[in-house]
């Protein structure tokens, strides 16, 4: 399938903004075939670009929160395991959670040769499937733009719960005050009111992300400006 075909089918698979909170429905529709799923979660369909962008993100994790071979890691909204596939080589175990079973099916195909990975379908917003104090690192990348603010905070709170004391959290989004962020905002404003897609990207501010982490109980909260025009908030769960 060509990129243009996938793009057109992606457009057909979108839901309207009224469905934005129905994350399972919205993302199941976008997960119907691997190319559309890949386009929806990563913006491209070829494996080499997926790997390259994932490598870039792993470097970001390394510089912002640090990585260790003994880490047990959880990704919130792992989609097709774009990051999980390469990251699983660098940790003890990688868990990928997503609200869409369809996305997880594609992820499962991509992780066949990775025994130290586990995929979990989330029933709803939150991480109720996971126990507390379990992970060294919980991260969520290229997801917050598709969530309402209350749900962003819910995931931050939940990440705090499932992190072990001393573990790190990482959450990114695009900021409104970057050139890219403003362009996305202006493009979104051009949709007719009744045709705004449910997955439309919505920015965060540095203050917003910092507040979420602070209110959830994280310490050493920092907001990083990343080279790819994203901002990322990181924090540590205090030791007991």
């Amino acid at each position: 399938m060509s990129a243009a075909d996938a793009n057109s089918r992606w457009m057909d698979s979108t839901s309207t903004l009224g469905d934005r909170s129905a994350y399972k429905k919205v993302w199941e529709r976008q997960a119907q075939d691997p190319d559309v799923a890949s386009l929806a979660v990563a913006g491209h369909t070829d494996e080499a670009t997926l790997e390259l962008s994932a490598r870039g993100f792993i470097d970001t994790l390394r510089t912002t929160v640090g990585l260790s071979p003994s880490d047990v890691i959880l990704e919130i909204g792992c989609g097709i395991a774009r990051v999980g596939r390469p990251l699983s080589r660098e940790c003890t175990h990688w868990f990928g959670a997503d609200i869409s079973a369809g996305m997880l099916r594609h992820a499962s195909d991509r992780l066949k040769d990775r025994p130290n990975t586990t995929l979990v379908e989330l029933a709803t917003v939150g991480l109720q499937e996971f126990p507390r104090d379990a992970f060294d690192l919980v991260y969520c990348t290229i997801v917050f733009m598709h969530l309402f603010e209350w749900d962003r905070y819910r995931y931050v709170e939940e990440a705090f719960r499932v992190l072990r004391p001393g573990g790190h959290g990482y959450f990114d989004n695009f900021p409104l005050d970057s050139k890219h962020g403003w362009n996305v905002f202006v493009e979104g404003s051009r949709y007719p009111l009744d045709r705004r897609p449910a997955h439309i990207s919505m920015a965060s501010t540095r203050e917003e992300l910092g507040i979420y982490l602070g209110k959830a109980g994280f310490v050493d909260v920092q907001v990083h400006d990343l080279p790819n025009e994203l901002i990322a908030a990181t924090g540590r769960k205090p030791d007991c």
Partner: protein
Amino acid sequence: MSAPPDDPGQRAAALQAELDAVKRRDAEFRANMVKEFLDRGERNTYLHTLREEKAGLVKREQESFADLEFLTRKLEAEGDRIAALEGELQGMWRSWSWRLTSPLRALRRAFSPGAPAPAAGGEPVQGGVFTYYLHTAPFRVYRGDSFTLRGWAWPEDGRAITAVRVNLDGRTFAGRHGLEEPEVIARYGAQPANPRPGFEVTFATPPGRHLLSLEAQLGGSEWRWIVRTSVWCEPKAP
């Protein structure tokens, strides 16, 4: 346990290696703990689903038994009525007036046109070959004022379903089609002409016996019936 090396550098390296091993064991323990937690959660969810399904099946079984009993009684009553009518007919055939008017009936048969008039309710609809499933079975005794038939279907000839309806004794009720059925698509594979094969039709169920025909329009033109059956609508007992 071996004696610690004298060299501070070697000692630090040995301690570091030991620390790394402990960290790895701790990580493996936590990873296994999460997996067990997930496994238990899945089992609980699965058990809950099974229990709910079982309760649903028991309820359906009870309803089916009640309907079966009702239909059996109806059949018995119809049998009695047929026997009574047959008796009446025999009596009529034996009567003087029947025998007297027999030549007139023979003449009428000889001069009457052949086929009976078509039934009311528009063009007759032919049956089609569909792959289908009905979530709400029509084979029941209808006790409410209306009923919603839900299911999914696609024609074997690969054409698109462009509308659905229920025809109840010639009265039609338009339904909604193009509803998502992800589990069906996952099981049977993509249906290019009918990517969302779900439908639902709500129709009135006035008391009495009716012919119910669930019909689909194919490719925007002809209608074909998916399933046909006689139904009994009985108001709920007060």
